[in-house]
């Protein structure tokens, strides 16, 4: 009971101070809008090793040769072989692969007759870079050795652009931006909110009161959860209005996933605040997390296209996991629970960061 009174007291104080801090308040609304416009256009780059799977219903000499050829290009990395087009769709849906290769059982006949396309590339077209890669792959020649003097023919391979038939980059950028902006603001705001009190001398007053460390931390976190949700709504609705980004998944899934992600970032912010002595240090540390998050999380470049070392680093960034979740839900209409492992990863981050923050924050000045 007393605990609740104290948590509410801290919460109300944070809200009061926030509402008086015009600049911060402006940033809460301004940052999402400005970034959304800034990142309206994507940056294209060369990629390699996109995850792929194939379904070879023909299973002939020629089809096997084709698969060998396409994987020799190193642009894609074939991870699975499945038995039907439907299974390819599933792998695309849950984000396991970026490209699916479908070879129908009359593959050989199609190649000889050249009347219909012989291969389909099923592509997660929400990412313009992946889409570009798929276009590139269509130039791989397919022919029997005996078929001489056939001009290079791209008609044989068809690209099926899933999820983003109009090939708009904003579609991919906007959900990714949700994560970037939440990382930026949530980590920074909490870290600074506590360090500022150290700098202004308020902390000496606070730690001399009976308020317990978890009470202080929770009271400080709650207002920012609220702010994070406001930002989420701003980005998704502005994305919808300005760039017609679809919302294919359930709103509840988006809400729940974002809530978990916000809490994770707030815990990280708290942890930073227990390490840094000045607001400047806190900001530096927040950027230390933010920069790799932007570059490595799959927000800017497709995850599969990155060097292995970078992929390992990316796995310890909460944003990487959140990006997979939010893109899956918003763009592919995936069920949150089909990516439960990503949820577990986020929850683990939060738990570790919060535990460390509470353990590190001691109610002493030394």
């Amino acid at each position, binding site marked *: 009971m007393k605990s609740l009174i104290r948590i509410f007291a801290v919460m109300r104080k944070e809200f009061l101070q926030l509402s008086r801090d015009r600049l911060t308040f402006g940033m809460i609304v301004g940052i999402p809008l400005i970034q959304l416009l800034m990142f309206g256009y994507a940056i294209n780059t060369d990629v390699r090793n996109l995850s792929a799977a194939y379904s070879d219903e023909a299973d002939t000499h020629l089809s096997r040769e084709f698969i060998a050829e396409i994987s020799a290009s190193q642009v894609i990395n074939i991870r699975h072989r499945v038995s039907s087009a439907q299974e390819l769709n599933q792998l695309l849906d849950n984000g396991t692969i970026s490209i699916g290769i479908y070879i129908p059982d009359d593959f050989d006949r199609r190649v000889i007759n050249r009347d219909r396309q012989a291969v389909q590339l099923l592509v997660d077209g929400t990412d313009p870079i992946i889409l570009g890669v798929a276009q590139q792959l269509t130039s791989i020649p397919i022919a029997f050795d005996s078929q001489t003097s056939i001009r290079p023919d791209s008609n044989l391979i068809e690209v099926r652009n899933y999820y983003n038939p109009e090939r708009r980059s904003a579609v991919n950028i906007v959900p990714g931006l949700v994560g970037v902006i939440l990382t930026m603001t949530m980590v920074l705001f909490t870290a600074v909110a506590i360090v500022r009190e150290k700098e202004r001398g308020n902390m000496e007053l606070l730690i001399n009161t009976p308020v317990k460390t978890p009470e202080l931390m929770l009271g400080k976190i709650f207002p920012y959860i609220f702010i994070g949700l406001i930002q989420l709504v701003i980005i998704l609705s502005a994305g919808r209005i300005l760039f017609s980004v679809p919302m294919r998944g359930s709103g509840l899934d988006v809400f729940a996933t974002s809530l978990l992600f916000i809490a994770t970032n707030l815990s990280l912010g708290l942890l930073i605040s227990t390490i840094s002595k000045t607001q400047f240090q806190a900001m530096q540390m927040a950027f230390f997390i933010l920069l790799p998050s932007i570059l490595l999380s799959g927000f800017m470049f497709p995850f599969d296209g990155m060097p292995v070392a970078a992929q390992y680093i990316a796995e310890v960034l909460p944003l990487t996991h959140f990006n997979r979740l939010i893109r899956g839900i918003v763009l592919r209409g995936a069920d949150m629970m089909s990516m439960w492992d990503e949820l577990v990863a986020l929850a683990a981050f939060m738990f570790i960061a919060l535990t460390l923050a509470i353990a590190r924050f001691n109610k*002493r000045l030394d």
Partner: protein
Amino acid sequence: MSDSEFAITSQGLTRRFGSLIAVNEVDLKIPRGQIYGFLGPNGSGKSTTIRMLCGLLTPSAGSAQVLGMDTRKESEKLKQLIGYMTQRFSLFEDMSVMENLRFISEIYAIDRKSRKTRVAELLEKFDLSSRIKQKAGTLSGGQKQRLALAAATLHKPKILFLDEPTSAVDPQNRRDFWETLFELAEQGTTILVSTHYMDEAARCHRLAILDQGVKVADGSPRELGNEIHSHVIEVSAEDPNLARAALVDEAKIISITQLGVRLRILIPKEFSGPVEIVSSRLGQANVDAEVEQVFPDLEDVFVAVTELRREAIAA
């Protein structure tokens, strides 16, 4: 046990910051219901000692008991029983007087019914009723100090720690402030107040003089005057500079302080006839002056103990 008699005790309380010894083996016995002063110059360790007693800093050595509780182990339990007014204003400058007091009343989880009346009572008592909507950051020095004291006493602590509470306050406000302190002490609150003003120190029931982290003397102001190891000689001269020049070479004199046209001179008690020592020196230099022995005030005590210590260290 004598525990009940003393609100605060400490044994060999020490705090180091790197190689600097900010507080050096301080022993304290502070009786209940008294106003106890810490007198010392800048950097003498007043704030550091108070922070250790509040449980905000961990001592490097030694220990302290506040209300019988160990400050290392039971600091959380103590928070409800002590009030602390920091040297630097530490309430929230972007919140109003009312919002600040309300926050404090909630953080101490004072029960709902008494919260409002207690805040109103304090606003009245500290003459802040007309300023409830004003942001704390825009208050004057004296108003800030009253607000800080109101916040520190809101939960009716048994012990009040005040770290240089009057540094930004005019003389009238300082008088009022001390009236309030005496009222609180009469109601049984033990008050520990640090200061570098002699007149404030003189108002305390007892005080300790700190110098470079060492407690160099303690007792009531009167006792300190009696126990001083020096004679105090006052010289009134038309030209105090001449008088000073005549006396400055005298080896027996440990310090000369000028107060307007008067000089206050300290001579260790081991020398007898201090008035004669001074008069003969002045006579040799043909300086016309009145010389008399006076009762030491706190400033003399302060100069005497710190000078003695410096000499002891130099020797």
